[in-house]
């Protein structure tokens, strides 16, 4: 079975810096990573492949440097990588993103075999909308299973799939017919480490790279900024919740000494607390 996993390259939010002066996000020099949620989707796809056979293709829409993420997906064990890149895609919102990805998925079907299962992550860590997966499903006319925690059963010969879906009230067990789009929940598996052979293959693999025309897209008004009705009005960084940290060091490394020094620092800024504690420890 051919399975496609949609993956987005995102800035590593743990390492994003806000420019201390202008307060804008400094993207330059921030390392990029595969959207962490998408790794759960990839691992789930690889597990299905290991059981029923077939191939896993990873698909990304993004700038040329997104190739790095695709190569990484290959070291995890994916069989093929497709990069959809074109300056016409710049500024895509979820509507335009799902349009472009749906077109690429159709093209992938023609070139490498129709995928009965397409995975996405639950959401991204930079856009956070969780709309792209359902958007793709709608455009391709796939059934959709969102927030999937576990694949209970897959019966390719009858064309059905059963999953556990986490919902607010508890766990739902859902069955549907293929083709299906699954958005995978985080924390449900752990991405594998590819073998040395996988690493080699990845370092030499040719990434299939398509522009809009290659993916069979003709209507450019549906792409990028032009195809995006969402307008970002303002971006701002919320004020920090905590004040700047302070280093409290002691020469004496015993726990008592460290605790005493921490407490005395705290009491310095909250003298009332010391009185309260004293009273409390003295008992009634």
């Amino acid at each position: 079975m051919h399975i496609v996993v949609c993956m987005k390259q995102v800035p590593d939010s743990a390492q994003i810096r806000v420019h201390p002066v202008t307060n804008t996000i400094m993207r330059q020099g921030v390392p990029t990573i595969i959207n962490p949620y998408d790794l759960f989707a990839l691992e789930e796809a690889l597990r299905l492949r290991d059981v029923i056979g077939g191939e896993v293709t990873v698909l990304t829409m993004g700038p040329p440097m997104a190739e790095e993420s695709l190569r990484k997906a290959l070291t995890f064990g994916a069989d093929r990588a497709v990069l959809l890149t074109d300056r016409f895609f710049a500024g895509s919102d979820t509507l335009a993103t799902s349009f472009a990805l749906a077109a690429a998925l159709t093209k992938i079907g023609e070139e490498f075999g129709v995928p009965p299962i397409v995975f996405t992550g639950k959401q991204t860590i930079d856009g956070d909308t969780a709309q792209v997966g359902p958007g793709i499903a709608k455009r391709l006319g796939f059934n959709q299973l969102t927030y999937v925690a576990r694949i209970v059963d897959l019966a390719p010969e009858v064309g059905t799939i059963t999953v556990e879906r986490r919902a607010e009230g508890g766990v739902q067990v859902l069955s549907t017919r293929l083709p299906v789009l699954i958005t995978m929940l985080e924390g449900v598996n752990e991405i594998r480490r590819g073998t040395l052979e996988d690493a080699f293959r990845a370092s030499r693999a040719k990434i299939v790279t398509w522009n809009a025309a290659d993916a069979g897209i003709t209507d450019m008004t549906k792409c990028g900024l032009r195809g995006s009705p969402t307008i970002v009005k303002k971006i701002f960084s919320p004020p920090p919740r905590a004040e700047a940290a302070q280093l409290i060091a002691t020469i004496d490394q015993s726990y008592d000494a460290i605790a005493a020094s921490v407490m005395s620092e705290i009491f310095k800024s909250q003298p009332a607390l010391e009185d309260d504690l004293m009273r409390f420890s003295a008992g009634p």
Partner: protein
Amino acid sequence: MIKERFDAIVVGAGPSGNAAAYTMAKEGLKVLQLERGEYSGSKNVQGAILYANALEKIIPDFRDDAPLERHVIEQRLWTMDDTSYVGMHYRSQDFNEERPNRYTIIRAQFDKWFSRKVREAGAVLLCETTVQELLRDSRGKVIGVRTDRGDGTVFADVVVLAEGVNGLIGQRSGLRAEVRTDSVALAVKEMHFLPREVIESRFNLKGNEGVVIEAMGTITAGMTGTAFLYTNQESISVGIGCIVADFEGSGQTPYGLLEAFKNHPSIKPLLENSECKEYAAHLIPEGGYNAMPELYGDGWIVVGDAGQFVNAVHREGSNLAMTTGRLAGETIVWLKRRKEIASKANLSEYRRRLDETFVMKDLKKYKNIPAFLHGTRQVFGVYPQLLSRAAQTWFRVDGTDKLSKEKEILKSFRKARTMPGLIGDAFKLVRAWR
């Protein structure tokens, strides 16, 4: 197991591994480079000085696209006590030359750039792949490596150990002893962000000019070590390091020393209003010539920090790393061209080439310095204080005549350290330096 065979496997993608891999790949050898980190530079301490000469010999036109921060036009050497510094500053317009000699760089970015060059030259780089042990044939010759990945063995004619200061692979494979705690310094470092204009006005700089400060004195609390401050384009690297053995039982911690250094009245204003964004700790091999392990054997060769190739007195490391990497690479290419195997006898050519360069000449020249510094703690406590007091006595105008001032200064030195002690220290230093 990987069936494909390589001419050389390089363990590590720091400056030494990159230099070796580049040199060999450029000459058409089949090179496999293995790096533990996520990418080249991901494990590396942030700011540093790049010495152009060593890199020029590998990539002559590196200035075209390497990520360089500032070229150094001023060097400040400070001897510090708790409230003062006595400094020697050298600033010259001559350093604003077309091909500057020293640059500040941010290692993570620089290593990434170098790594791209290595791959463009044709080497295969596999990251997040840790070498666990060397494989040997029945006669003991190294023939490949085992990695931590599944089915992870791969073979080559020679293995270049560019694994950095710890030298764990060399150690585990019985090629060398464990690194001694008195031969390595533990350095901690921070990056402080400041707008360009602020850095330029604080340090009196234009455009890409840069300043570096190296300091010693009471800031290391009597331990053998130094502190530094480098200007980058929009940040300042500041750090301090001391010999690991000295920390033991001293009650001092590296970050405690760094905190104190940053709060020194001479440093604090330079960092004011900056935002600290990155903190890193790393070891520096400082044992010098006398601490060097075996550098080559049957099927293996050691380059960079793994071979203790650091000139601690001049804080040169990456240039020695690149030069040793290049020489090892050139030696392997030379053997390959002559269709000779990488036996211990043949690889001795590496040592012969090393001996002809500044690398061995400098390390030999300074071979007694580590022992001198270790045995002469006054350098990091009493002397800086005396120097500062002497300067103060000399500059303070208070009605005392100059001859009395001179006598007072001399007396203060003698009181702190006996005359034979003073002379002895000077004598030891001269001997170590020669």
